[in-house]
């Protein structure tokens, strides 16, 4: 019994210590973000890698999700003669919830893994040490550009995803569910409020920050050898995904429960 309690205690302590390390890492990232030198070229590279190259994945995800959503809401709404809500619910569901969350998860899969693998490999091949000896701070050179780029790019990706998702719903609605094209669009935009969209974009920024932070954190703390990099990559994706879902709940609570 005592041993069980001791085990639980040790587990809790280890978990708290891990959280503490991540928080310290996040604070250090923010501090380095605000103090020179700034590596503009690395930032540009990160914008292209994280933002631009994620567009196809996020776009496709949104397209299919919007379409499926329209079908579901139509068949669900039919149970109480409310098929007409399809455009509105698709739009609200997309911009408030599914756009940011699914977009964030796709970016987590794509970006957290590649950042963790790249930085982890740099760590095990002593490239991080080499950076230090060349008077370049790894946090400034590697972490800051990626975290900043992700924080600024994911909202844009979410915005694009929102539009494509609504379009997916529109395509299904007009071609399969017999909606009138004009009526669908009017219904979509008449009921959509500014805050619906803005809250989704803010979520996107938070998710982007978390994704890049996890990639960098696990990469920088990668174990030795290929196995270490493999573990770091897996841990980064898992941590980023869980944090996205958890922070999504908290943000939704903060934004909409009042």
């Amino acid at each position: 019994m005592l041993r069980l309690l001791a085990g639980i205690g040790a587990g809790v302590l280890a978990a708290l210590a891990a959280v503490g390390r991540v928080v310290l890492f996040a604070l250090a990232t923010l501090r380095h973000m605000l103090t020179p030198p700034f590596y503009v070229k690395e930032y540009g590279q990160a914008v292209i890698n994280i933002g631009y190259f994620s567009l196809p994945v996020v776009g496709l995800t949104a397209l299919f999700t919007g379409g499926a959503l329209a079908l579901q809401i139509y068949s669900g709404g039919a149970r109480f003669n409310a098929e007409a809500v399809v455009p509105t619910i698709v739009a609200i569901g997309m911009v408030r919830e599914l756009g940011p969350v699914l977009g964030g998860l796709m970016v987590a899969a794509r970006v957290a893994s590649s950042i963790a693998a790249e930085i982890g490999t740099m760590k095990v091949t002593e490239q991080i040490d080499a950076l230090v000896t060349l008077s370049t701070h790894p946090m400034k050179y590697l972490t800051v550009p990626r975290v900043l780029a992700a924080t600024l790019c994911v909202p844009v990706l979410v915005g694009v995803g929102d539009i494509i998702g609504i379009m997916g719903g529109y395509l299904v609605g007009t071609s399969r569910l017999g909606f009138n094209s004009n009526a669908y669009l009017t219904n979509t935009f008449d009921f959509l409020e500014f805050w619906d969209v803005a809250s989704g974009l803010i979520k996107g920024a938070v998710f982007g920050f978390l994704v890049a932070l996890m990639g960098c954190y696990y990469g920088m703390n990668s174990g030795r050898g290929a196995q270490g990099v493999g573990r770091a990559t897996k841990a980064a994706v898992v941590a980023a995904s869980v944090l996205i879902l958890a922070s999504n709940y908290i943000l939704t609570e903060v934004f909409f429960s009042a």
Partner: protein
Amino acid sequence: MIELSGVKKSFGSNHVLRGVDLNVRRGESMVIIGGSGTGKSITIKCVLGLITPDAGKITVDGQDILNQPRDAFLARFGMLFQGGALFDSLPVWQNVAFRLLRGSLARPKDEAREIAIEKLRRVGLKPDVADRLPAELSGGMQKRVGLARAIAADPEIIFFDEPTTGLDPIMSGVINDLIREIVVEMGATAMTITHDMTSVRAIADKVAMLHDGVIQWTGPIGELDQTDDPYVRQFVGGLAEGPIEAVR
């Protein structure tokens, strides 16, 4: 100039350094020899502050390395890593000129590139490798790019971790001469790790032998063959029999 006293470092139960004392004077070429896995690379990384020792003190010019401004301190050093540690996202010349392209030693891009190509030439590489990526080079070529990067900013203290492993005998000779030249002509202080006895004789002013976590023997290169220290005799002679166990 570089002084280590009582430096200790363990990884878990693996007590790698158990009290290393070493003194390298300005303009001197110190070579560290010792079996594989005895902690030679760790020792150098401790001096650069890449690894924090568990105990002991390291000073450079009488100043503790821990309370010095990091950037100015590191700007005095050049380091060749055992594995090369080239940045694989950057072309060769930008690797070599890394320090010349940013920070306190930054200069115009053209000039940095010219210096990079000149340093590449000194390590026996043609200008046409400058625009290739490190992954496209052979192991020995990567090592030499690493060497070019270490000397690119003309540092006053240079560490070479196994500069000639993986090179053919002729290229090893070129590199040995280059290291000697850097010490003699540029007055740099060098610490070199090597297993290659030819290199030791070509490069060293002084030799230190690391074994069992301490410096077993240290002395001028001239005494290397005279000493009756059994560890050194076994290592230099490459003998299987002796105080150093062959299975570690």
